[in-house]
């Protein structure tokens, strides 16, 4: 086939898969390739030799044979991989080609579903020659015939006329940059499929659709699919997050009310308050986790929305009078989701702060109660100390009395014993002061020594100076008494005292 016999693209179907689904991608590629009787070597050879097609650079791998009705393209996008099934036709009625293509798509989808390949999303793009303002009347007629005719009961397409009914009501159209899809006024139309849509439908009116169909469109469409998945996931999570937050708000309010009633009507139990703190801390943790999840969703959706804005500004026409209903629709839809995420994040932050404040309030109550308990204990300790002091004072008085009694008793018995030993009237020969001194020393040493001895026994400390001084006083007094006695009986010189 000569390069001049260039075939027009009439339709394309896109299977998006996660890049990690390598096995699924391989199976899908082989299934579609086998269906079109293509093999890798032949396909590349065909492409190299033919030169009749000029796919986008993003088409990393291509199955193309000049005689085959379809060719396949594998493009690796930032987060997804896409297998593009592209139909080409010679000159002829386009509606017939679309009809045939839709037949093939439905049959291939059934085949793929039977093989268990997990597809992230799908889109069909029907291509018509330029000139139509809205999707061509013929296009709608074809889809009506397809859906309302052979596939009337096809659950994938949602029943007779569903596609057309919604399409007629809500077709979104955007002007594409003429440099991407040929001159004139290339336009992209988004057809509303039944809800929930089994896959999405677009129509393109363009003079040179090749590069747009195999490159720019799947790039934009994959981004919309990622956004749809992320926003859908968030919408699912949002209800449970809002429910959790409302529940936590209610429980925080109830707990605070309970504490207020406690403080007004009587003293609550400290352990009960500590349980409240544990409860509140758990709620705080729950809110913090939710908050983290929502913030992450906000970043993710915000980032993807920026990517969408960039992609739209590159692909869509910025010329005078150009419209971008598709871009406006999706930016508004996902912009609304982002706004909703931000509101949820804000509410969560407020609830988190409330829970934190409630923890502070209950903790303060616990501290106050503990301070009261401590004050009570201190009061008790003070009273006990007072009692102990009193007992000590009483003990001291009794001790003093005992010392005095001991002194008197010892004094009396020492002097009587001395007089008894030396005989009647002998001791009286001594001057009263000299007579009293040794007796006083022995009595005082004994009384004081007993006190210090008791203390030494109790503390097991024998180095007490009081003990030794009293012992020395007693010993020296005894020695003095013996010397005086000996002097009195004349053994030591028989001195006369008067």
């Amino acid at each position: 086939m000569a390069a001049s016999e260039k075939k027009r693209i009439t339709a394309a179907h896109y299977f998006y898969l996660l890049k990690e689904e390598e096995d699924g991608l391989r199976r899908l590629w082989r299934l579609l390739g086998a269906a079109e009787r293509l093999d890798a070597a032949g396909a590349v050879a065909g492409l190299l030799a033919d030169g009749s097609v000029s796919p986008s650079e993003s088409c990393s791998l291509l199955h193309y044979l000049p005689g085959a009705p379809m060719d396949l393209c594998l493009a690796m996008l930032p987060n997804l991989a896409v297998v593009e099934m592209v139909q080409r036709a010679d000159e002829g009625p386009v509606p017939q080609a679309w009809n045939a293509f839709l037949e093939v798509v439905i049959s291939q989808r059934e085949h793929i579903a039977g093989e268990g390949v997990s597809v992230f999303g799908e889109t069909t793009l029907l291509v018509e020659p330029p000139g139509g303002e809205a999707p061509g009347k013929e296009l709608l007629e074809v889809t009506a015939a397809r859906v309302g005719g052979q596939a009337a009961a096809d659950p994938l397409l949602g029943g007779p006329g569903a596609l057309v009914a919604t399409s007629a009501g809500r077709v979104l159209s955007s002007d594409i940059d003429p440099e991407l899809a040929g001159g004139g006024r290339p336009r992209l139309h988004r057809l509303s499929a039944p809800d929930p849509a089994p896959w999405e439908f677009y129509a393109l009116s363009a003079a040179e659709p090749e590069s747009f169909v195999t490159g720019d469109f799947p790039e934009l469409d994959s981004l919309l699919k990622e956004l749809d998945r992320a926003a859908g996931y968030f919408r699912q999570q949002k209800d449970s997050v809002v429910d959790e937050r409302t529940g936590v708000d209610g429980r925080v309010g109830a707990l605070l009310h309970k504490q207020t009633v406690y403080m007004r009507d009587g003293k609550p139990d400290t352990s009960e308050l500590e349980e409240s703190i544990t409860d509140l801390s758990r709620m705080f943790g729950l809110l913090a986790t939710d908050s983290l999840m929502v913030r992450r969703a906000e970043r993710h959706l915000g980032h993807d929305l920026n990517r969408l804005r960039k992609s739209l500004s590159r692909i869509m026409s910025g010329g005078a009078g150009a419209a971008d209903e598709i871009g406006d629709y999706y930016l508004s839809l996902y912009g609304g989701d982002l706004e909703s995420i931000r509101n949820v994040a804000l509410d969560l932050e407020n609830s988190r702060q409330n829970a934190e404040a409630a923890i502070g309030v209950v903790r303060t109550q616990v501290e106050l109660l503990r301070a009261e308990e401590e004050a009570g204990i201190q009061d008790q300790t003070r009273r006990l100390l007072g009692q102990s002091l009193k007992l000590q004072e009483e003990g001291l008085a009794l001790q003093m009395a005992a010392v005095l009694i001991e002194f008197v008793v010892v004094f009396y018995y020492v002097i009587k014993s001395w007089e008894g030993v030396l005989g009647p009237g002998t001791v009286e020969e001594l001057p009263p002061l000299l007579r009293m001194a040794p007796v006083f020393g022995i009595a005082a040493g004994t009384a004081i020594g007993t006190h210090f001895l008791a203390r030494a026994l109790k503390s097991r400390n024998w180095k007490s100076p009081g003990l030794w001084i009293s012992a020395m006083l007693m010993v020296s007094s005894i020695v003095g008494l013996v010397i005086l006695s000996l002097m009195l009986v004349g053994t030591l010189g028989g001195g006369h005292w008067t």
Partner: protein
Amino acid sequence: MDLIELIEEAIEDEKRAAEKYRRGAEMAEDPETRSFFEQLVTWEQGHERVLRDRLAALKLIRGQ
């Protein structure tokens, strides 16, 4: 020659070409020549990226 080997060889060719043009840009004495070589470097890097993408896709499909 196997297709994968062919693409790997082509990637090496692109790298060598880019390196040659980079040296040309360094040696260029006037801004116009330097700018010309720099543009060639960018082109060769683009070719290399396209080839790498295709190599990755081919390896993925072949399960290598």
